[in-house]
């Protein structure tokens, strides 16, 4: 019996080692491909080290007491051993110290993620600036991406320039979803009553898988999209190619997209001006019936960017 306990202890450490080396590119979170994900990755690795330490201490004491005092007639039996001030203070202080060691980088990272990452490449000409903004709307069960600067709309995939910080402004048309591209960085919810934003940046050109991480009903499992990061020149040629060869998004087509189902990726060379407001379902219905919905809640905009990327419908 004792042996099994010991082996279990060892077995628990092996996966931790595998994790720490993080060698497999299948483990998306441990394979960061951009500054945001990397920042989070460092925090994760640090916490893993500290937590393995805690686990190791507990396991060592656990195994020791079981082996030593699990025998029928062990020598050290002392039923009156019921307290030890010094020890109790030690194991009060040790967790406090560990908490501090974890809390400090946590708070630091929290604040750091508020700011856009530093650009590592030259911006494409079609961007007109050093950062990019994309409006993301989750609609049961698809993702709409709108490029206000380029006047382009894509569905279920998004193209970004590599090495440039991208401000994803997140909205929901109906149910709540969450926008998650693990290799580029952690998720944020998309909601109907408040707009959120998320900075992401890809180091290199490549394809990064994303999906909704908040359950929203039947088609949720298929609510995936790809993020295609392209070099500056490739990005520019993609933009001009879309402008030349793709259809415009009509209001009719848009209304079709709002129906709940899963669709294939699509590309549109422009979108109707009315859509710039990213209306949610209640507002859309209000607009059609002429009734106000009173759900613009400026106080709810807590995205922490001081209105920079802020957005109020």
């Amino acid at each position: 019996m004792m042996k099994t306990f010991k082996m279990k202890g060892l077995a628990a450490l092996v996966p931790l080692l595998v994790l720490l080396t993080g060698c497999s590119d299948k483990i998306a979170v441990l394979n960061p491909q951009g500054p945001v994900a990397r920042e989070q990755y460092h925090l994760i690795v640090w916490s893993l080290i500290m937590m393995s330490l805690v686990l190791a201490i507990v396991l060592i004491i656990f195994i020791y007491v079981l082996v030593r005092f699990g025998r029928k007639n062990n020598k050290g039996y002392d039923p009156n051993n019921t307290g030890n001030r010094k020890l109790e203070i030690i194991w009060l202080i040790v967790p406090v110290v560990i908490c501090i060691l974890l809390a400090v980088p946590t708070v630091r990272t929290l604040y750091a993620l508020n700011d856009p990452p530093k650009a590592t490449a030259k911006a494409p000409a079609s961007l007109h600036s050093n950062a990019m903004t994309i409006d993301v709307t989750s609609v049961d069960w698809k993702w709409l991406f709108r490029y206000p600067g380029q006047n382009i709309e894509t569905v279920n995939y998004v193209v970004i320039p590599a090495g440039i910080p991208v401000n994803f402004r997140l909205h929901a048309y109906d149910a709540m979803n969450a926008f998650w591209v693990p290799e580029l960085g952690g998720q944020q919810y998309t909601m109907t009553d408040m707009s959120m934003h998320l900075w992401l940046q890809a180091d290199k050109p490549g394809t990064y898988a994303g999906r909704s991480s908040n359950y929203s009903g039947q088609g949720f499992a298929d609510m995936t999209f790809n993020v295609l990061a392209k070099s500056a020149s490739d990005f520019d040629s993609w933009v001009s190619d879309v402008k030349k060869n793709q259809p415009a998004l009509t209001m009719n087509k848009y209304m079709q997209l709002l129906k709940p189902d899963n669709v294939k990726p699509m590309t549109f060379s422009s979108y109707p001006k009315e859509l710039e407001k990213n209306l949610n379902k209640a507002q859309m219905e209000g607009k059609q019936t002429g009734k106000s919905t009173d759900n613009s809640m400026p106080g709810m905009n807590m995205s922490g960017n001081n209105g920079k990327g802020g957005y109020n419908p």
Partner: protein
Amino acid sequence: MQNITNFLSHFFVTGDPMIYGADASIALASIGIVVVLTYFKKWKWLWDEWLTSVDHKRIGIMYIIAALLMLFRGGVDALMMRTQLALPNMHFLNAEHYNQVFTTHGTIMIIFVAMPFIFGLMNIAVPLQIGARDVAFPFLNALSFWLFFFGAMLFNLSFVIGGSPDAGWSSYAPFAGAELNPGVGQNYYLIGVQISGIGSLATGINFLVTILKMRAPGMTLFKMPMFTWSILITSVIVIFAFPAFTVALALMTIDRLFGAHFFTIAAGGSPMLWANLFWFWGHPEVYIVLLPVFGIFSEVIATFAHKTLFGYVVMVWSMIAISFLSFITWLHHFFTMGNTAPVNAFFSISTMLIAIPTGVKIFNWLFTLNRGRIEFTTPMLWALAFIPNFTIGGVTGVMLAMAPADYQYHNSYFLVAHFHSTLIAGTVFGIFCGLHYWWPKMFGYLLNEKLGKWSFWVFMISFNICFMPMYFLGLMGMTRRMYTYPAGLGWGPINFIITIGAFGMGLGFIIMALNIVWSAIHGKKDTTGDPWDGRTLEWSTASPAPEYNFAHIPTVSTRDAFEAMKEEKREGRTKPQLPFKPIHMPNNSGIPFIMGGFMFVAGFGFVFEWFWMGIPGLLGVVACMIARSFVYNDHHHIPADEIERIERAAGRLS
């Protein structure tokens, strides 16, 4: 005619062989129960001895039976999910079914397994541990049970009538609102959980008063057994947390039934309000199902290490600290809902702080074992396994508490793995531990040790096979609540291993069920009332305890009161036998059962928005209250010679 068939095919869930199977088995089981009861002429026995009982021990047993049945249902749900996820692109369940199954699994496991199981164990042990004859409000206690029971029945009915809820156990708005989630499924959730929630709140009040007012003479607060302490603190959490949930459920019910918009934005409502209210209850709730098992482990570890608990006072203060902190961490469930950095920082740190008192407790348990004489009984194995397995759940909890890292773990299988590591290695190990520990006190015989150990090892090892790989799956990007996943992402093999582990846990549970059946026939009798060499007062009376618990209320002078009594006896200082006096006990009552029945009828009516049914149901509830207020003769006395006869039959007079 057409109308009727149309109605019936919507009323009954149709078109799925699994549902017909469930229909058939429910019908068969009901017929079977009726036949057996009638054949053995047991109806009157059932009514007199059980359904109308206000005896905390009987109520405890009924809680546990119901919770075990619900555990079976929740477990079948889990195995269905794991079968569907065993391989990529499986077609065992479609999206609609899968969504219902994880919703009922989560809701049943938390509300109808973990809580009632704990309520069952505390009903059995707490009055005995504090040397009381019953709880403070025995009638209310029975009512709590029947509200839980009928709430659970209503919730389960959704499987065959009308359709199950599918918005997840957390039922986030706006998805759970009437517009995105039409049909009656979500109503079942709201009303079934509400009915049993009222019972839970009453239980909280009942046990708070019981523990504060009914302790044996001499038992000061800091001489109480640790399990009683944990229940005292849990009761306080219940009283503060449940009202938030009651209100949230009521508001969403109003949204769905009467077209209000508390949680949908159409008229200025806020989905985020639901998240706040839900988790303001939801996080304390996890401590409602965790602190009591901390108490159980404390009792079991002290008993089988044959030592007094190490650091008793610190243990108590740790629990008090946890209960306080549990109310200021709820936001960690939605770090990714657009909070500002200072808000997330506050809740990150408050969550991490919980690790400190929890860590202190772990070390105190380890040092209780230190210098002990450890005896590896089945309850002790569950308690020992808790320490490393729960620590894994705890450290991953700290990792989740670090908000920026949580952006990557949130809603992924990492999270699923984490909360099962705490809910199973904590709560489930704990209730199994308590079940084996107090079984002799409940029934007067022991569960078989050999089968007990088999079920432990099979369950515990399978648990690790099932849930450890999930951490990796989460880091690979698989999110919770996905009904299927494509091949080629490398998720297949891991999912397959997880499914093997899940079925292993099922096997462990079956062995435990076998043990219960086997031991009912062959189990070793407990003639002493103290089969484990226990330390607390519940072991000082007969097994099973007589209706009145203690012929004489014990006087307490130290912690581990019964251990001290035995010590005195060993030293030859026996007290003279006092004469028996008549004992005052509460009368049985059928009203709690009937009132629960009316609640069920009302609840069913409101689920279908049939107010012609719901309102009379509620009137029935009120009528029961009025009827109760006219019951003046609600107690009786057990005469002294009857007590003497019972004590003699139990072999306690010598």
